[in-house]
């Protein structure tokens, strides 16, 4: 009997899918370890949802420093990276990206909760705050350059928490930033902010596989597609960030 069970168990591992996931696990709220040292965070939870759509999936999270994340994938320490990876030309040549993104890094216009803005032009001669030297600052500068008739004043801050404080102080009418970071800072300061639908930039985030993992990539793609269709990923994004950044 024992032998039978042992054979059965080894057979089942033979047919199960091994999902070894590499992530930094020091990147809140996307990938981090909870109090019991279990991998959690948005990216890791997406993987767990995806795995639930794959029959006999065996999940294994590997923590890896950011600078070793691609070499870890190359050396087969794990087979998937889920760590807010965006596409670049060099990466696309070397790796397989999942067919669908599971998240979008965005740069949006954010106001206080009592305002209802869908377009930047609804603001009249506004003061808009950005962090100095950030991509958000670059996008706003570009926008104002391309829309010379729209008058706005850019105010440069050195840190993000002060941006939020000055939105509340009404020294700013809006800020341009990633809503995830801002919502987090706002919560800490007990301030209610509202990311508007006006998006300056939207950068999709994908799973990454080795070129030889085509089979696994297909399997994950199918599962991810199902999860997206059933609204599971949107649900998770809402739970984590209060906004749906999965589409």
């Amino acid at each position, binding site marked *: 009997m024992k032998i039978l069970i042992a054979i059965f168990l080894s057979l089942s591992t033979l047919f199960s899918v091994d999902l070894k996931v590499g992530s930094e696990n020091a990147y809140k709220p996307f990938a981090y370890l909870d109090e019991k040292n279990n991998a959690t965070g948005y990216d890791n939870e997406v993987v767990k949802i995806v795995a639930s759509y794959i029959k006999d999936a065996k999940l294994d999270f590997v923590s890896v420093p950011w600078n070793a994340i691609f070499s870890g994938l190359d050396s087969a320490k794990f087979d998937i990276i889920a760590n807010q990876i965006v596409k670049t030309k060099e990466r696309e040549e070397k790796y397989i990206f999942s067919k669908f993104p599971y998240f979008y890094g965005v740069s949006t216009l954010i106001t206080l909760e009592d305002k209802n803005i869908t377009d930047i032009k609804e603001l009249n001669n506004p003061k808009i705050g950005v962090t*100095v*030297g950030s991509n958000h*600052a670059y996008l706003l500068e570009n926008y104002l350059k391309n829309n010379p008739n729209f008058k706005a004043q850019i*105010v*440069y801050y*050195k840190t993000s928490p002060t941006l939020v*404080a000055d939105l*509340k*102080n009404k*020294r700013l009418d809006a800020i341009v930033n990633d809503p995830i970071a801002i919502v987090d800072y706002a919560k800490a300061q007990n301030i209610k902010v509202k990311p508007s639908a006006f998006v300056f930039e939207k950068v999709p985030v994908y799973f990454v596989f080795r070129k030889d993992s085509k089979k696994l990539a297909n399997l994950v793609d199918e599962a991810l597609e199902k999860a997206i269709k059933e609204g599971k990923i949107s649900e998770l994004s809402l739970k984590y960030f209060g906004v749906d950044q999965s589409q």
Partner: protein
Amino acid sequence: MFDFAYFYHTAQSLLPGLPISFLIASFSFCTGGLLGLIFALIRVYKFPFLNQIVILYVSFFRGTPLLVQLFMFFYGIPIFLKSLNFNFNFALIDAIYYALVVFSLYASAYLTEIFRSALLAVDKGQIEAAYSVGMNNFQTLRRIILPQAFMITLPNLLNFFILQIKNTALASIITVPDLMGLADIEAGRSSKFLEVYLMAAIMYWILCMILEFIFSKIEKYFEKFRKSYH
């Protein structure tokens, strides 16, 4: 590589910050000087009660970093007042006014000490001589003590002004577009840190050199009067 074309180009984008830096330094120097003189007199003549307050005030503003004071006034106080349901639209006050106030308070604390040491340095015999010819306290102060104290303190005063010019680089932390603020914005755009900050350094340097030249002329001019006292 060092980008010379860009280096010259940054001069244009940094230049508008220079008058703002100069304004903050000179405004705070004047108001801080006036306050400092009053505070120094309170200290020297040991006005009851006020003396203790001035001691506390000077100790606080000299004993805390200017950066902390700027943060406290610009971000802290409005949030604190709001939490007390004090309804005032802080957006009406531009960041530059906070800078002017905080830099003035900071300057007044330092100038109090500079003036006080100068007042104390005036020879006691001169004061007694003034009393002996029948001058009252105010006359002694105006005719004997202040002119001499001014001569003694002049180099220190001008030195402090040049220090204050360099202190203004901190104003950018509260979003004032001074020379340093514009340099940060420019460096953020291009990531060419050496070019941008070298240009900013040269601009501060030139401004301070011009001031040093003017001040040395002023000191030479007043030197005439100093001689007549000896």
